[in-house]
């Protein structure tokens, strides 16, 4: 471990973000490449912590911050935090390299790099935090960066609105998280993970459940699970790099990290685990169905992200170390292939000028590198062996099957059904964008491959997607230090039933999609018209009308109440004085009664 690595790994990007305006004054390119450099330095620090964590070393270093609340500033070096830090910093560095090409020529790049670096620093700070309040502070900071970056192209009102929506919806979750953290502090007297573990022994089950559920509320918001998922599809208004970094690889994983961390800190009540698993599996299934009908390439990927994170949550909800490990393994796979898919999508959007898949097609011949890396991503997402998605997703399904009982079976079925739908929408996306004949407006050399600075990160990620699946054993060894007694699965058990069921599901989902979208034996439009199918289509297209419902209740509802409360201020002084008198009498009454 390099000296001061646990602090520098997140302090360096934050220092970098503060330097960005100054570097920008010198030259724009200097600022861009320095941003990449800062991220590389940060990943170096992160990777340097890996060997120590691998052999079971862990450290908890603190500095005093608010003595009045006995609050310290600290970093925790343990397998989970180092694992997350490596993922965030490494993928962050790759995406910053890609940004140099993707965002070239845009205005406001100082603001872009400022918030990207602040985000990377904040996210790493979040995972390295050794106490809940510090985690919460970084949690909000990354929310702020997400808001600023989604609304990067502020000249588009939709982008600004999407940013606000993201921040407000996630803040609903954040408020629950804060309540949970403070309630835990009330009962244990500490924010630090290590101390909570001891103090939690003395707490009764209902308190622990309440706290855990409140904190899960925060995770639901940040990780875009049901019912707080409505912000993520709209967040696609931001640049593709932002979507890749924040909304695929890292920030949305913060909720998963939180639930995983809580698992290691205090015992989890059965009801709470059930809730987590239920939310996760329901989200996974619902989101995958919504991805089937989306017309915007990034929206498909957004729903896909929601769905895959659902898998991670549901794995955590299984309540076993094996399930926990499966979720972290899938977190790594997903970070890699989803970032890859978003970067490819960015390259496509950059070349074609639109996000609408109906205006794309046949790009395979114009963008071969993008096509092949995208193909790798899609195969990983669909969990086709030997790509990484297969190993991790099947581990999850295996663990849920292994849980047994009606709950385990139900979860397993939901998981396999989701896998089937996942293959379907993946093939649909691949076919609509890259296969078939290109539309007329794209022919004749109008579309070009992405520059090297963009394709290099894509290729790197693609290679990792192939290789990372085989890292299960070392990863299991790394993570086993957290669970001192249990041992974690180092490879997939070739249990016949779950394996064959999942492969069958892949075929069941893949074959129809292949026939419809690639072979075109049935035009896709057949599925969108007609009384029943049309209604289903509209239901899925509108996200099960959840967003519409929220808009009616929260936006229109609050506006209605607000309009009514405004009328209290009539502008007539006599009325105001009457209110004073009434308040005097009612206060007197209130006080005398109590």
């Amino acid at each position, binding site marked *: 471990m390099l000296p001061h690595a646990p602090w520098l790994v997140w302090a360096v990007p934050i220092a970098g973000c503060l330097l960005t305006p100054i570097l920008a004054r010198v030259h724009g390119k200097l600022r861009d490449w320095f941003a990449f450099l800062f991220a590389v330095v940060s990943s170096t620090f992160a990777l340097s912590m890996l060997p120590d964590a691998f052999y079971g070393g862990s450290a908890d270093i603190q500095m005093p911050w608010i003595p009045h609340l006995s609050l310290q500033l600290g970093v925790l070096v343990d397998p989970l935090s180092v694992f997350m830090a490596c993922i965030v910093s490494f993928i962050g560095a790759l995406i910053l390299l890609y940004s140099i090409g993707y965002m070239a020529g845009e205005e406001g790049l100082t603001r872009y790099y400022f918030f990207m670096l602040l985000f990377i620093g904040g996210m790493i700070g979040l995972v390295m935090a050794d106490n809940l309040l510090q985690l919460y502070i970084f949690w909000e900071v990354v929310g702020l960066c997400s808001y600023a970056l989604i609304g990067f192209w502020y000249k588009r009102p939709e982008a600004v609105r999407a940013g606000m929506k993201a921040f407000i919806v996630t803040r609903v979750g954040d408020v629950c998280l804060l309540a949970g953290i403070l309630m835990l502090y009330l009962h244990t007297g500490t924010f630090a993970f290590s101390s909570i573990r001891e103090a939690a022994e003395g707490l009764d089950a209902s308190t622990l459940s309440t706290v855990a559920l409140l904190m899960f509320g925060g995770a639901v918001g940040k990780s875009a699970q049901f019912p707080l998922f409505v912000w993520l599809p709209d967040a696609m208004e931001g640049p593709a790099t932002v979507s890749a970094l924040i909304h695929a690889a890292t920030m949305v994983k913060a909720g998963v990290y939180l639930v995983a961390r809580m698992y290691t800190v205090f015992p989890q009540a059965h009801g709470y685990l059930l809730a987590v698993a239920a939310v996760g599996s329901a989200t996974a299934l619902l989101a995958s169905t919504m991805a089937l009908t989306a017309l915007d390439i990034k929206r498909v990927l957004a729903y896909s992200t929601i769905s895959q994170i659902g898998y991670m949550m549901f794995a955590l909800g299984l309540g076993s170390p094996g399930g926990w490990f499966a979720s972290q393994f899938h977190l790594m796979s997903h970070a890699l292939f989803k970032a890859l898919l978003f970067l490819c999508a960015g390259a496509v959007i950059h070349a074609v000028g639109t996000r609408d898949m109906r205006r794309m097609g046949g790009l395979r011949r114009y963008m071969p590198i993008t096509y092949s890396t995208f193909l790798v991503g899609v195969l990983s997402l669909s969990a086709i062996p030997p790509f990484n998605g297969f190993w991790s997703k099947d581990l999850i399904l295996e663990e849920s099957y292994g849980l047994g009982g009606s709950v385990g079976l139900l979860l397993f079925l939901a998981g396999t059904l989701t896998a089937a739908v996942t293959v379907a929408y993946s093939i649909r996306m691949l076919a609509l964008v890259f296969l078939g004949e290109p539309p007329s407006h794209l022919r004749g050399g109008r579309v070009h491959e992405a520059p090297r600075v963009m394709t290099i990160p894509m290729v790197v990620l693609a290679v990792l997607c192939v290789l990372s699946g085989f890292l299960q054993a070392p990863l299991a060894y790394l993570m086993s230090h957290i669970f001192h007694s249990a041992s974690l699965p180092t490879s997939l058990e070739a249990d016949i039933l779950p394996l064959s069921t999942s492969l069958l599901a892949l075929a069941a989902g893949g074959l129809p999609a292949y026939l419809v979208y690639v072979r075109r034996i049935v035009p896709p439009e057949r599925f969108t018209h007609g009384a029943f199918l049309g209604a289903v289509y509209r239901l899925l297209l509108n996200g099960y009308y959840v967003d519409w419902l929220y808009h009616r209740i929260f936006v229109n509802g609050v506006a209605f109440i607000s309009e009514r409360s405004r009328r209290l201020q009539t502008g007539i*002084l*006599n009325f105001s*004085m009457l209110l004073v008198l009434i308040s005097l009498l009612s206060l007197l009454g209130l006080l005398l009664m109590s």
Partner: protein
Amino acid sequence: MIPLSYYLMFTGALYIIGMYCLATKRNMIRLVLGIEILINAANLNFIVFSAMWRPGFIDPLAHAIVIISIALAGCVSAVALTLVMYAYRHYGTLDIQELRRLRW
């Protein structure tokens, strides 16, 4: 001797009258008078209490407070009446209910 309770009822009534005036009267100058009535209720209370400690002893603290309070009330009235004057210039009326441009 007049019992203390009579005085307290009187000042209480004055306070209520003052509040009633502020809550119902429309003429701005009447509102200023209402403020005066309120302050006088409090002043009277002080004077009354100052005599209630021991027979023959009047507590000077209360009287000091009252004198200052009267002076302050005078300042407030001065400012208030100046504002009434400007309000008349802007709105052309002394009816407080006409001054409703600021609402909601």
